[in-house]
């Protein structure tokens, strides 16, 4: 049985009372009491998001400003920590990138936005994982030049509206947001509430993430939920949605031992950065780009119905060649889906592998990701 006891020292998001009122099943997650699901359950919430619009509280994630004298200075400073092309960001554009160790392992993955507003020149808006924000902030403070400062944002909530009907809902409250393309952001007012809206998310669907003053978060949550297309969605469905979308979860699919190349995140390393380097772990990444990594993250589809969970060994013949890092049931796929690391020689799509699930050999094959096509607004 699952343990749902939430201890009193857990942090609460500004939307905590809303979750409790909606009968959200609250569980400890990264130090916060968070809803893993509401009454309808994970499968119904997952399918609702794919077909309508799901509303997620992601206020536990870390929001912060990086502040320097001008855009070029702040971007250059951040580029000493990440392999993404930050200097090339246009106003209002978002980049997905990673903080790296000197050995090229991933400290965290993050979203970096260059504000569209010229008055905010010199600022970059960062969103990092809840479980890593303390590590990230300490890492940045230790490494950034004194001329660039980190300002964690503690007085804002963050929610995500995801799914094919998110745009229609947003259109009724904030026309400016609807004009955004995928991975773009703007400052806007939503029913009179000033907020920062980005066309992004972590479900594989079109949608928005809205950073809002904490004291206005409840009102905005209620506004979205009043729409017939919108249901509240917990962390359980967020996990199955991102797994079907082939997206990494920190601490599971990526960590300080995995490099972005191994993790199949090479697309997030800009061409200029690949050539010039100048970020931690460049030697490893340059080598892995040139020679290929010894292992890589792949999708895995069990032939049967038994889910393959994190930690399940992947074998070819008698040899163990990898391990599952995220796995479970994909509600839209209608069967088990997983991802994990496998030796590169066995990483080709359709390679037959064997998973050891509770001591039993289960046939599976390497599969292309995403398991469900992305439906981003290009």
């Amino acid at each position: 049985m699952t343990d749902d006891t939430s201890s009193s020292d857990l942090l609460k998001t500004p939307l905590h009372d809303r979750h409790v009122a909606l009968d959200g099943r609250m569980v400890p997650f990264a130090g916060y009491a968070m809803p893993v699901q509401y009454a309808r359950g994970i499968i119904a919430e997952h399918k609702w998001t794919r077909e309508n619009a799901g509303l997620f509280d992601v206020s536990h994630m870390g929001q912060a400003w990086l502040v320097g004298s001008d855009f070029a200075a702040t971007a250059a400073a951040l580029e000493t920590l990440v392999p993404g092309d930050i200097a090339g960001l246009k106003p209002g554009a978002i980049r997905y990138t990673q903080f790296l160790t000197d050995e090229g392992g991933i400290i965290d993955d993050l979203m970096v936005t260059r504000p569209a507003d010229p008055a905010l020149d010199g600022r970059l808006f960062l969103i990092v994982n809840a479980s890593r924000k303390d590590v990230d902030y300490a890492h940045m403070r230790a490494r950034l030049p004194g001329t660039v400062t980190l300002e964690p944002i503690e007085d804002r909530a963050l929610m995500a509206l995801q799914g094919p009907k998110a745009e229609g809902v947003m259109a009724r409250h904030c026309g400016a947001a609807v004009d955004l393309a995928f991975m773009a952001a703007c400052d806007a007012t939503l029913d009179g509430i000033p907020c920062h809206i980005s066309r992004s998310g972590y479900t594989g669907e079109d949608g928005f993430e809205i950073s809002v003053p904490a004291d206005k978060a409840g009102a905005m949550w209620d506004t979205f939920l009043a729409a017939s297309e919108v249901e509240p969605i917990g962390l359980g469905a967020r996990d199955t949605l991102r797994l079907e979308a082939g997206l990494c979860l920190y601490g599971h699919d990526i960590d300080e031992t995995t490099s972005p190349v191994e993790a199949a995140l090479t697309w997030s390393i800009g061409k200029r950065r690949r050539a010039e380097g100048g970020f931690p772990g460049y030697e490893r990444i340059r080598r892995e780009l040139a020679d290929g990594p010894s292992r890589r993250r792949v999708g895995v589809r069990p032939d049967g119905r038994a889910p393959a969970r994190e930690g399940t060994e992947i074998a070819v013949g008698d040899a163990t060649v990898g391990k599952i890092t995220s796995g479970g049931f994909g509600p839209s796929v209608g069967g088990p889906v997983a991802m994990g690391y496998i030796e590169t020689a066995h990483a080709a799509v359709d390679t037959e592998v064997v998973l050891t699930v509770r001591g039993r050999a289960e046939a599976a094959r390497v599969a292309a990701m995403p398991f469900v096509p992305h439906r981003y607004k290009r």
Partner: protein
Amino acid sequence: MSMHFTKDHEWISVEGDVGTIGITDYAQEQLGDVVFVELPEVGKTVAIGEEAGVVESVKAASEIYAPVSGEVVEVNQALADEPAKVNEAPEGAGWFVKIKLSDTSQLDALMDADAYKAYVASVS
């Protein structure tokens, strides 16, 4: 016919010396959406507290423990195609296995419906 319950939230309903085993409504509620059920082979003998199957929800796998010792005489094959029956009718069509009891006196150590109800109230 009598119905008995364990602290692990299994139930067993006994007719003669054959017991039908499943998980309780409280258990399915706690698990959430059931997506896979692994059942033992017919003919397998299990001891009290031994694994008599595995139920997997979206989030995690949980063992089902035999509330009594005996031999597995039937498994609910319908769960292979419709694991959600465990959520819909946990104490009916969503049963897991039938066991021929080796010692019916083992039932005496289990809870009756009222005792189980009180137990659930104390843990939830």
